[in-house]
């Protein structure tokens, strides 16, 4: 269990139960040192160990085959005592991961929530199977899911979430727990809001820029991944055709006396060369996955920007409403009608209202104005809170992104270096064989 902020203290529905001070403190602490004591990762090792196939009935009562992933957790301190206990484990399928993520998206709208790995293999080069059951795909997805959990566990806010904790530790009843939080209703309204069209007059410029950035990032990374897949495809072809040399050299060596040995061994090297491309491209697929993660992150970024627009819009609406009420009051008090209204017209036509009627209206308006001012104040606070907390998380995300992608580019260079070295070795070997011809 966690030491300080026990899960019960953290509200599972919305962030409004946390005081802003607590939230800010949480984030500040972890911003300074990523793996501070609030991080779940300090407490437990998390891994997604294996994958298995299961059969069962789906929602429309049809037989289906699906894959489940083994989540293993173990308290960190247990290991340091010299004895390594067996980890606790449970099985989860992809749809449960999706549910967890949707819950977190709704509950922490100011957080850029890490994306899940692809549901289906997309942007693959054609030799790589697009089949979800393909063992290589399942393996890569396993790695992606583990990465997802580790991202959540190291996030200063998300790691404290109770639902997340239970996802990791209790197999049964978790789904029901999630639905009991009532997040589904929030999810539906969130979805509506996401798709609604509205105009914000004064959005925070940083969020507007961020939205543009995430659109750009999505476009450029998609394109990069597509071309990379095509390049991989072609490279595969080049290497594999050399395998034909292996076969023909071998056959040819049978009819030659002096050249036979040289040809035969050269043929072996050609076979090895052709075979080497499989591992090379598999490794590159991991690089592609790293880029894909950030491609999928753009959706989360856009969601946060959208939430800002929504809260800003609500604030603007509340302010607008208040302003109109105030104006109505003024008109009533001074008797001047500045804006056209049917009431105003009818009263002009059918005579003024009585003093009592006016007084009653004024009372109502003043009540509304009071309420309106409260609402505006609330919305203002809400909006400020959101901007503050979201922007902190975004800065955190940006740093993480720069670090991770730099790492990825370096690993890509290393992969190319490795491929070149292999090429040098193979062709040097082949050259020596040709020399013996």
């Amino acid at each position, binding site marked *: 269990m966690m030491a300080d902020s026990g899960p019960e203290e953290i509200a599972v529905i919305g962030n409004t139960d946390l005081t802003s001070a607590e939230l800010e403190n949480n984030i500040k602490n972890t911003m300074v040192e990523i*793996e501070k004591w609030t991080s779940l990762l300090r407490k437990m090792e998390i891994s997604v160990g294996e994958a298995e196939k299961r059969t069962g009935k789906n929602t429309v009562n049809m037989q289906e085959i699906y894959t489940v992933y083994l989540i293993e957790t173990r308290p960190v301190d247990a290991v340091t005592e010299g004895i390594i206990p067996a980890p606790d484990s449970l099985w989860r399928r992809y749809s449960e991961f999706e549910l967890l993520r949707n819950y977190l998206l709704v509950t922490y709208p100011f957080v850029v929530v890490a994306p899940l790995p692809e549901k289906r293999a997309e942007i693959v080069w054609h030799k790589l199977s697009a089949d979800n059951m393909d063992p290589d795909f399942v393996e890569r997805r396993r790695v992606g899911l583990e990465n997802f959990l580790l991202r959540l566990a190291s996030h200063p806010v998300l790691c404290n979430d109770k639902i997340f904790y239970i996802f990791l530790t209790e197999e049964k009843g978790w789904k029901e727990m999630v639905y009991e939080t009532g997040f589904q209703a929030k999810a539906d309204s969130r979805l509506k809001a996401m798709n609604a069209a509205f105009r914000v007059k004064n959005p925070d410029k940083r969020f507007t820029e961020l939205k543009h950035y995430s659109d750009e990032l999505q476009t450029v990374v998609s394109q990069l991944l597509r071309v990379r897949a095509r*390049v991989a495809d072609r490279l595969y072809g080049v290497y594999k055709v050399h395998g034909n040399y292996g076969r023909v050299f071998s056959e040819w060596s049978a009819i030659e006396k002096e050249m036979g040995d040289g040809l035969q061994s050269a043929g072996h090297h050609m076979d090895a060369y052709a075979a080497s491309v499989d591992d090379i491209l598999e490794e590159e697929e991991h690089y592609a996955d790293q880029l894909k993660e950030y491609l999928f992150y753009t959706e989360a970024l856009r969601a946060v920007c959208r939430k800002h627009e929504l809260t800003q819009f609500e604030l603007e609406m509340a302010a607008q409403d208040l302003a109109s009420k105030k104006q109505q009051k003024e008109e009533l008090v001074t008797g001047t009608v500045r804006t056209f209204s049917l009431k105003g017209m009818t009263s002009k036509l059918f005579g003024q209202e009585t003093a009592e009627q006016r007084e009653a209206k004024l009372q109502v308006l003043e009540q509304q104005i009071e309420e309106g001012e409260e609402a505006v104040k609330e919305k203002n606070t809400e909006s400020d809170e959101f901007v503050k907390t979201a922007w902190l998380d975004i800065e955190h995300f940006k740093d993480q992104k720069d670090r991770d992608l730099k*790492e990825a*580019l370096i690993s890509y260079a290393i992969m190319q270096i490795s491929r070149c070295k292999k090429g040098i070795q193979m062709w*040097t070997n082949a*050259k020596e064989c040709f020399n013996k*011809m």
Partner: protein
Amino acid sequence: MSRTIDAVVSPTQTNTIPADISGQMLDLDEDDDLEVFSKDLTLADGNMFNASMPTSPGSMVNQCKFEEDEESDSKDIFITVDNPESHVTAIETFITYRVLTKTTRSEFDNSEYEVRRRYQDFLWLKGKLEDAHSTLIVHPLPEKFVVKGMVERFNGDFIETRRKALHKFLNRVADHPILSCSEDFKVFLSAQAWELTTYKKQGPGFLSRMGETVRAVANSVRGVKNRPEEFTAIQEYVEDFSNKIGSLDKVTQRIVKEQKEYLEELKEYGPTYTLWSGSEEELAEQLKGVAGCIERCCKETEEQVGHLSDTLVPVLHEYVLCAETLKAVLRRRDNIQAEFEAKNEALATKKVDRDALKEEIDKLEDRVEWANNALKGDWGRWQRSMRGDLKSAFLSTAEKNVDYYEKCLAVWETFLLSQRTEPSEETDRDNTP
């Protein structure tokens, strides 16, 4: 980054090849080309140096070694084919090539000749040589037509490929101890255009040549009865060789195709990183760095494909044609034997002038023996040439591939080095997965 292979040929030391190459069969023809270029500074009209001549590190070393090598025949004739020119007449358009000969041989009046020849002339020469020496192995000429049709004949690449093949053809003839003494060969190299035309008109007329062809067909239909074992062995080898070399030709052409397609995609890949860098701040430099690496690798890939097309593809293609030549030579030898056997049988069965027939049979028997010996001698020669040519071509290809990967390695290593020397604040931060 240290390399694991010490003996690797780095791009800056292309001449430092392991010494054991010198003991192997030398590719004499490539040496000829280089000897001409290095010796003949008098012919400084610029056309002499043809940058596209194959100058693999292997042959450059061979050149140096060759001058010290006393075992090989002293070269006394050097031929180059270059300078293609287009000629347009009312009837046709054709290309002529300049044929330059330098020789110290006594049968030539001059030591230098410069003539222009067209493909037809080469065909004529080959025909004459084969007629005179039907069981000698004459190096093939490049093919007459390109599959795609007329327009391709005047395409720059096609002309260059043909020029190289014609050059090789003449040099192989010049190398041959028997063929190079041919009068037709001498005339080909030395006669002016009109002289050659006159010369061509001499010799057996159309009808007598037809007669020869008819006899040849008749003989081949009859078939040979007692072919010596060694020629059967050669025939079986030629069949197999023909298959294998045909496959290698196809495989290599496929590799060139795949490599070119890879290059096309690669050219689009680098720019995607550049595009991305436009949206980034911290990452911009690195992304541009990766784009630059990919671009440089594109250049290297282009060079590598070019090398393959220039070096390996033509040689394999030549030996596909050689295989056909060999089959034809074996057929002709069979026909000679068949003719002898037929006459021999006639001696036993037909009622003819026995003395006259006997004399004819003796002549045919001599002819068979001469043909067999010629072929036997040339067969060894051809095999050595073949081994030399193919070994050299594959060696050159392997060397180029090593060079290619080394250059790409350097590109990525330089990039990696530039990343690792970034300010330490980047690397000291904890990395959360």
